[in-house]
Each structure stands twice: as C-alpha cells, then as structure tokens.
C-alpha cells in the first residue's frame, strides 16, 4: 500500500539534490577542514561556500553562522551559552509554548516562562509583567510553533525586550519557519536564531545558530575551537553542504510552494469540515501554510494515529517522547486546553511532495477512524 506522509513538521523527505551534493562530499577525498594540506583546504572551501549560501538565505553574515548538530543543540547553545556569560541574577525567559530544547534549559536554570493566549500566541501583557519583575539575560520566542504552526509576534516581543532591557539577548527558534517564511526578514530583530536542516529537505543531525556580531556566547561543546570557538568538533561537511543546498532550494521555491501547499491545506480543512463533526482547528491567526492542527472530540490520539496508519495516512499528535509513548501537549496546556480536549489532538503537516491524492485520502481516512473510535467508546 502506498502511504500518504502528512508529517512534514516532524521531518521532511531529503531532496534528491541534497542527497547528490552530500554523496559527492562523502565519496570524495578525505579532508578535515581544520587541517592545512590541500585536501583539508578543499573541505574548508566547501564549508565556506555552504556557510555563505546558508547565511544569505537566513539574512546573516557568514561569520554569524555557527553550525551545530541540529536544532536542539542550537537552542541549547543559545540559552545556555548566554546564561554562561551572564550574572547569576539574570535568568532566561521564554514563552510556555517553546520546544523542549528551549523550555528545559530555561527551566533547569531557574528561568521564567511567559503565559500563552487562548489563540496560541505568547501573551505580550504577561511578557511585560515578567520583564518588569526580572532583568533577563536572554528572552526566547519561537517564530513558528512546531505543534500548531502559529506564527509568533517576534517583532513585538523584541520591541518589548529592547524597551525594558536593551542589554538582554533576543533568541528565536526558527526551526519550523525556514520553508514557509522569509526568515531573513522575519528574524532580523533577533540576536540569536536556531535552524534545523531536516525541516526543509536537508539531513537530520545538522543545524545552525545565527549569532549576530557582538553577541557573546559561552560554548557548550568545548574542544578544538571550531566555529570560532563557539562549537568545537570537526564539522559535518557533508551534512552542512546538504543543509545549505536544501536552504537555498527552499528559499528559491518558497513562494511557489507556499501557494501550492496553501491550496492543499484548504482542500484538507474544507474536506474534513464536510465529512466530520466535533472538531476545531487549534488557535487562530497567521499560521504557516503546511500545518493543520485539529482537536477532535471523543477520541484520543494514540489509537487514532494507528487507525490512520492502517488507512495509509502517517501523521502525529502533538509531540512524542523518546520512548514513543504519547504525552499531553504542553503547548495545548499553555493555551488552556484541558487534558481531555488536548488528548484528541491531530497534526497533519503538508509539504512540497504532498499531492491532492494524499489530501483526499486523509479526508476519507480521518473521519472514518474518528467515527470508529467514537463508536467503540
């Protein structure tokens, strides 16, 4: 049976151009970019080219791009790196709907979280209250939430931070944004910006943190001093080249992809509306084109996802822990959803490879599965 992959927010198919570029690097001569001989210099040339290309997509100077081992590492470097350079009485602050890669470093260090509105955005009034109470070292708000796809008011957040604490660092996790939004413009107000290669057609295990000139960070991985001392360890040249190719393609094709995927999303939501009762879209306002997040009455995500899989539709709920067991979403909890309502969450995320047939299958399979679970209850 063919399957309809509607989980592009979890990870994306690696683009053939990316595979080709990575294979070329990996099958070529060995060369550590930190070395001095010809092969090392060749590797460094590839790395520099990839860095420049990536920097252009994200609106940064090449020297501002720190390559990491993924988005979570970039988030950790942002929060822990700033905290490492700050006085102990200056906590980290983030919204309650951040990815755990931000939330945990903030919470473990005794930082503060900012409330979320019922429509799924950071509560700016609460941010003002928090920033009146503490003098933060770093304030973090993601650009696009990974569960709901809702775009966060980063410009307003940055303004509030600058007005009160001009010396605080503004970080944004833009991991879910690069495919859908002009990140060069949208993240211009942030001092630190996180990316992950596998969310836009690149490989997993590669990410980047943009560190604007003048922002000081302590490294969290120490060693040979690569990436200007901000992230030691021999660079994953093939992965970085792959991510850079993917980013360049994503930026070049962004408008066309957004237009096409928006159409698919409308087809999905309207199709479901005509065939299924008792559900609503989560939150409201600007949402990235590829994300549909529903809360469905009378079901729990765990059996729903398995029934969808039996019908050939691969999707996910909110988030899952490493053991694979479902856990209630902290994002929905922050939005004020009770456990029962949150447990019926379904994330259908669309990408450039999604077809109308995939959408039509979901429109068929989702209501069937929901009715089956409701009938069994």
């Amino acid at each position, binding site marked *: 049976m063919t399957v309809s992959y509607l989980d592009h927010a979890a990870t994306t198919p690696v683009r053939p151009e990316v595979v080709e570029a990575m294979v070329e690097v990996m099958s070529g001569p060995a060369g550590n970019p930190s070395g001095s001989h010809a092969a090392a210099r060749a590797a460094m040339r590839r790395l520099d080219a990839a860095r420049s290309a990536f920097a252009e997509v994200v609106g940064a100077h090449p020297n501002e791009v720190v390559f990491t081992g993924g988005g979570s590492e970039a988030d950790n470097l942002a929060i822990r790196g700033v905290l490492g350079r700050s006085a102990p009485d200056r906590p980290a602050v983030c919204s309650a709907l951040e990815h755990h890669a931000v939330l945990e470093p903030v919470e473990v260090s005794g930082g503060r979280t900012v409330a979320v509105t019922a429509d799924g955005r950071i509560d700016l009034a609460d941010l003002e209250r928090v920033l009146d109470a503490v003098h933060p070292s770093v304030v973090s708000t993601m650009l696009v939430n990974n569960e709901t796809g809702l775009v966060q008011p980063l410009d307003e957040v940055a303004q509030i931070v600058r007005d009160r604490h001009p010396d605080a660092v503004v970080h944004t996790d833009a991991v879910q944004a690069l495919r859908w939004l002009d990140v060069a413009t949208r993240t211009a107000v942030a001092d630190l910006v996180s990316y992950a290669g596998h969310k836009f057609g690149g490989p997993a295990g590669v990410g980047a943190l943009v560190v604007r000139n003048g922002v000081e960070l302590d490294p969290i991985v120490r060693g040979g001093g690569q990436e200007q001392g901000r992230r030691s360890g021999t660079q994953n040249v093939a992965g970085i080249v792959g991510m850079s190719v993917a980013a360049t393609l994503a930026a070049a094709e962004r408008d066309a992809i957004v237009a096409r995927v928006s159409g698919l999303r409308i087809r999905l939501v309207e199709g479901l509306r005509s065939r299924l009762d008792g559900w609503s879209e989560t939150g409201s306002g600007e949402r990235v084109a590829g994300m549909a997040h529903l809360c469905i009455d009378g079901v729990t995500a765990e059996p729903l996802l398995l*029934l969808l899989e*039996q019908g050939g539709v691969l999707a996910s709920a909110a988030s899952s822990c490493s*053991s694979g*067991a*479902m856990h209630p979403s902290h994002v929905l909890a922050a939005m004020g959803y009770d456990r029962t309502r949150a447990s019926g969450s379904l994330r259908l995320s669309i990408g450039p490879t999604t077809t109308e047939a995939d959408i039509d299958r979901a429109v068929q399979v989702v209501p069937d599965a929901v009715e089956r*679970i409701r009938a*069994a209850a």
Partner: protein
Amino acid sequence: MSRLLVAMSGGVDSSVAAALAVEAGHQVTGVTLKLWGGESDSGCCSVSDVEDARRVAHQLGIDHHVFNFGEDFERHVVDPFVDAWANGTTPNPCVECNRHIKFDLLLRRADLLGFETIATGHHARLVEHAGERRLARGADAAKDQSYVLHMLGAEQRARLELPVGHLTKAEVRAEAERFGFDTAAKPDSQDVCFIHSDGGKAKFLGDRIPLRSGRIVDTEGTELGTVERVQLVTIGQRKGLDLGGGQGRRYVVDTDPSTDTVVVGDRAALLRAEQPVEAWQWVVDPDLVGGELAAQVSAHGGPRAVASIEADRVVWAESEQRVAPGQAIVGYDGDTVVGWGLAA
C-alpha cells in the same frame, strides 16, 4: 493465522512469548504499555525496558508500539492501592492491573485496531475443557501466575494466548538464548512495579497518606506497646513488631483501622476453620467442579486444601491462617482456576 497483539514488557517472558507467537505463524504486533511515570526500579516501564522490548520486536521483524495507559493505571491501580492501605485492607495491584489495564483497556484497544487476540508472557496455561478454555497453573510451579489472572472471564480467556505457560523459567531462558535475545539473562521483575526498592512501600505510602502510629494489644486487650505506621501492619505479620523478649512467637491476628489497634497473639489465635469472603464468583460452572478443591490466598503462597466453598465463605479442610481483608482468594480444582473472592 490471527492478528495477535503481544504485550511486551521488555522482560524475558514476554519476549519469548512474542517469539513463539511469531513461530506459531500468527501475524504479530508488539506493544509496550507505559504505565508508570514515577520512580521505580523493580518492575517495568522504564525507558530502557521500552527499548529492550522494541529491540526484541525488531529482531523478530514485527512492528512495535507504545501505548501510554499511565492515567488509567494511576486511576485503577495506584490510587486504589493507596486507598486500600489507608483503609487497613491489603490490595492486589497486579490483579487490578490485569483486570483493568491488560485485559480490559488493552483488549478494547486491540478490538479497535482489529486484533482478534492478545498474548502476554504470564506463566499460566489455557486448557480446553468441556468446550471452553479454562485457566490453569503454569508448568513452572515456582513461577505460576494463574493467581493474578483469576479474574479472566470466558470471553477474555477465549481471546488470550499465553505462549510461555507450558515452559519452566529455565526453558524460557533457553528459548531466549535460542532466539538470541540479549534480555535472556535479565532478572525477573520483583514486587510492585511502581514502587522503588529504596524506601519501598512505606516511603511510597508515606509520601501519599499520613501514616499513623498505633497501639499493640494482646487478645485479652492488655497494652503491649506501640507501632509506627499502623496502616501497613497486616494480619499474619510476625516481623517488625517490637514486643520485647520472652513470650514466644507472636503474630498479628487482627487489626482495627478505626482505632489504630493491632492485636497480637500466638499462632493458634490466627487459625480459622473457615474464611469469610465477599461475593465468591465461580469462573467455571460449579457443577463441573469436583476432585481436589484448593485455594491460594497470595501470589506466591501454596495451595490450601478446601472442604467446601459457599457464596460468603471458604471452609478449610484443616484450620488455616486468617487471610488479610482485601486479599484475593483463588479457588482451584487441581491445576485449574475455578473461582475467586476477596477475603472479608
């Protein structure tokens, strides 16, 4: 063959159960139940156990899922466990887990997903008798788990497979070696899966309910001393009561939770000709029960000879030690489970 859902804890028994089900030609899917998020080192449910289960499933070439039944486990197993101790009765958490989680929730989930049958790694057997499947003791008397499965009704027994019930534990480990499982030498799970061995039951309960001290009296009512954590004292208990020296072995023969009193006496004071039970239930037709009637009163206890069983009591063949209220009493005809009740 049927679509079969195997509950895999990551331990050796359920790993071999899954492997034998695959060998028997069933279309097998593995599932690990995430039941307890708190601290524990004695049972299952840790992340590494889930990974053990998944690795075995992959080795067998079968699909593996994780179902999070944590909230249901808390509601149906952990909360009643705490309430029972708080009220001076002795709970059966493994029994309640089987009743509410494995053979209700999991079975219903299996229905929903189109699995006809479920399997577990319990040491017990299902034997055909007079047109129905009866639950019988496992081949390894020391590992027999039929006691904790006593509540299975006819429909549940019809939809269950127990692939390791005919094997001894040593044979199960040998099978695990044959299949090349790295869980072959994994130690058996111990005691209550959600309680950490550091601190044990006393700490677990002490964190959740106020444990009071109580007084100890003899059967004449003479005060003998005091006891910490009176709710944790169970009938038949001998250790842990500081009664000074002298008077020979003394046992807890009664407890009164309403006055926090523990009554101690000699062994004779603990013996009863019959044991009152709450609503005895036959799981097979009582007219078909004959032969050697026996009853087991704890998961690891031996069988006691029974003279007769009535709706509200079990009459022992010879006087037996009193059973703590709340404990399950399971009736056997030879090796076969025929009914059960709770000690009153």
